[in-house]
């Protein structure tokens, strides 16, 4: 059941990069949301290095050494490294554990030698198949939980994940522009799955004295956003993708309701809403994640970040060094600029520049501008009777905002897509059980492998 009943911030104007209502401290003198922004570097191993534990550990050792060396070379005060598990690291929990341990050893050396502040996030791969197995009673889940334990024991400071509950419905719904399926898949099934899995993740984090971080709707809302793509793409309407993001904001909250403390996961574009409601520090990514994917809010998304990330960069040589070193440098200078603005008392000016750069570039940036994200947050907490109610309310608020601001220009097709979704949202039942019954009947017929019992329905 939803728990958040009010906003952590009194207004959107109060939200700023580098400071969160509930900062988090862990690792080697590493504080997130305590007044300054830090970079979070995500290295990705080259294809082929996943063939054995030995080759993969070696790859991470090289990637992270390059990151730490570059931090020292250009004077970056602190950094978080995310070990975003490739499938093999979770499937073989000992691999992920050993990599965390090796990265911790490296970080301790640099901390001892140079005083470089640092921390490790381990993001376990959710490789459950919701349309083929019981998501709450499967070998995959058992192995994932073992991977959390191994990573925590190895040296991870922050445990995170990108859960996939409801993905079987959302995959079907996104490519059919079906907002009902999005609310059901992300808002209801995704939330129920998070409630179940996060209870277990928090328990493991407590057992090892580490921080339960966060969960992103990467598997669903990011799919919609990436499919919407750039101005010339014709896969998913951008306005529809933005509605999907608003629903994801209601869903990703569940991690913090179950005890996660943040910083949130970098690819959770919905996290600015999370910050407004919960006050936890957030990791964000934008222009610096162009190495992994394109988006239309590269500057705006920095506006309230506490960690600034690159999403994932594959390890290769560039003229300026290896990719992990180069991206550590890019992130480091971005963060230095934000922290300079903080020191000069100009943070609000810089934040407004970030926002105005992208607010009217596309629907996604528009709804995630702090003022609009705050309004979506208010709609979520005002409708906290059920996961369904707050998800639907988030989407409706996002739609109202998009239709209500003439500066957000839309093609006729985009506007029609949005109005059509809004009409569907308005026609949905008020009662959660009615909605669930209706959706179970429809999607059991339409989506192969969908089993409501897997979600306790």
């Amino acid at each position: 059941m939803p728990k958040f009943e009010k906003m952590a911030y009194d207004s959107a104007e109060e939200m700023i990069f580098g400071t969160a209502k509930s900062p988090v401290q862990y690792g080697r003198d590493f504080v997130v949301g305590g007044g300054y922004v830090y970079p979070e570097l995500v290295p990705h191993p080259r294809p082929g290095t996943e063939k054995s534990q030995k080759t993969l550990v070696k790859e991470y050792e090289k990637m992270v050494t390059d990151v730490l060396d570059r931090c020292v070379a250009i004077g970056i005060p602190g950094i978080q490294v995310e070990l975003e598990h490739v499938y093999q690291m979770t499937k073989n929990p000992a691999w992920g554990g050993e990599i965390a341990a090796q990265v911790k050893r490296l970080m301790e050396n640099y901390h001892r030698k140079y005083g470089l502040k640092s921390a490790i996030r381990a993001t376990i791969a959710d490789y459950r198949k919701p349309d083929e197995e019981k998501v709450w009673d499967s070998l995959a889940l058992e192995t994932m939980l073992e991977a959390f334990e191994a990573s925590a024991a190895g040296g991870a400071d922050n445990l995170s994940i990108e859960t996939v509950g409801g993905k079987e419905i959302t995959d079907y719904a996104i490519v059919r522009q079906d907002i009902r399926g999005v609310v059901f898949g992300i808002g209801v099934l995704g939330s129920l799955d998070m409630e179940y899995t996060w209870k277990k993740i928090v328990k493991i984090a407590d057992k090892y004295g580490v921080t339960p971080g966060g969960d992103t709707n990467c598997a669903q809302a990011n799919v919609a956003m990436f499919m919407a793509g750039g101005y010339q793409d014709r896969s998913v309407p951008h306005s529809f993708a933005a509605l999907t993001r608003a629903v994801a904001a209601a869903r990703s909250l569940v991690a913090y309701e179950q005890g996660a403390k943040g910083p949130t996961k970098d690819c959770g574009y919905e996290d600015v809403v999370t910050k407004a409601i919960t006050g936890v520090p957030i990791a964000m990514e934008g222009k610096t994640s162009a190495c992994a994917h394109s988006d239309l809010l590269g500057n705006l998304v920095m506006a309230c970040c506490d960690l600034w990330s690159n999403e994932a960069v594959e390890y290769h040589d560039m003229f300026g060094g290896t990719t992990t070193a180069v991206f550590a440098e890019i992130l480091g200078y971005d963060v230095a600029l934000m922290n300079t603005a903080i020191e000069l008392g100009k943070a609000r000016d810089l934040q407004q520049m970030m926002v105005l750069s992208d607010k009217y570039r596309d629907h996604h940036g528009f709804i995630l501008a702090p003022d609009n994200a705050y309004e979506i947050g208010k709609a979520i907490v005002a409708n906290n009777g059920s996961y369904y109610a707050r998800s639907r309310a988030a989407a409706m608020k996002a739609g109202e905002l998009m239709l209500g601001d003439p500066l957000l220009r839309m093609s006729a097709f985009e506007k029609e897509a949005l109005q059509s979704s809004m009409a569907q949202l308005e026609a949905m039942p008020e009662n959660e059980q009615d909605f669930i019954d209706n959706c179970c009947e429809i999607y059991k017929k339409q989506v192969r492998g969908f089993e409501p019992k897997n979600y306790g329905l």
Partner: protein
Amino acid sequence: MEALAISNYDNIFKRYDLVSEGSGQGIMATAKDADLQKIMECVIEGETDDILGLVDEALTKLDPMVIINDALIKGMNEVSRLWDEGTYYLPQVILASDAMLAGIELCEKKMGKSMEKKGIVVTHTAEGDIHDLGQKIVNALLRANGYEVIDLGKDVPVDTVVNAVKQYKPVMVTGTALMTTTMTAFEKISNRLSAAGLEIPFVCGGGAVSEEYVTGYKLGVFGKDASQAPGMAADAVNGGTWQELREKYNG
């Protein structure tokens, strides 16, 4: 603090999505009679709820193959044109495909046999990868264009793909992967197929999969976008080799 304001965004970004808006011709296709027209419109509008009743009614008067060719497939062809000209987005194509396939299924029941397919394509998502939305889109587009799809699903071991190619003898096999660390299975599949003398185009794409990687092994043809799949399958049916497909679509 006073809020900053901008009155002119023209030098900050340009909305290229609005530049060519409305340049398409819109719906143009017409059918031979009123019944066929209604069915065709259902496909074009992606009306999966209404199409079954209309096809059922038409089957009392018309030959099933007439309904398939002159309404269902004709409607789908119009949808493909609308997508090509930028009027339609992918969801309109997927919904149209759903409607068309539902109609075809009814017609096939009436005929007592399946309509002849253009060819067989085996599709899969790499072992260790559960992200199969790209594959699902490929499946839908291939089916909408008259191909039989053997859908092996996601997280598929190398052996399963090789055995399926031996069993179904497809004109083409596809592989989808989101992660670079799962796409390495493609090369193993390629080696196994080549060793067995099954030299058909192996179209690989998705997420972090790159042309450089796919064209580095035998049989590999890089698929940049799911929308290319029907054209590639057509080339394979017409005898195109993997080398010819690679030449045409890559490089």
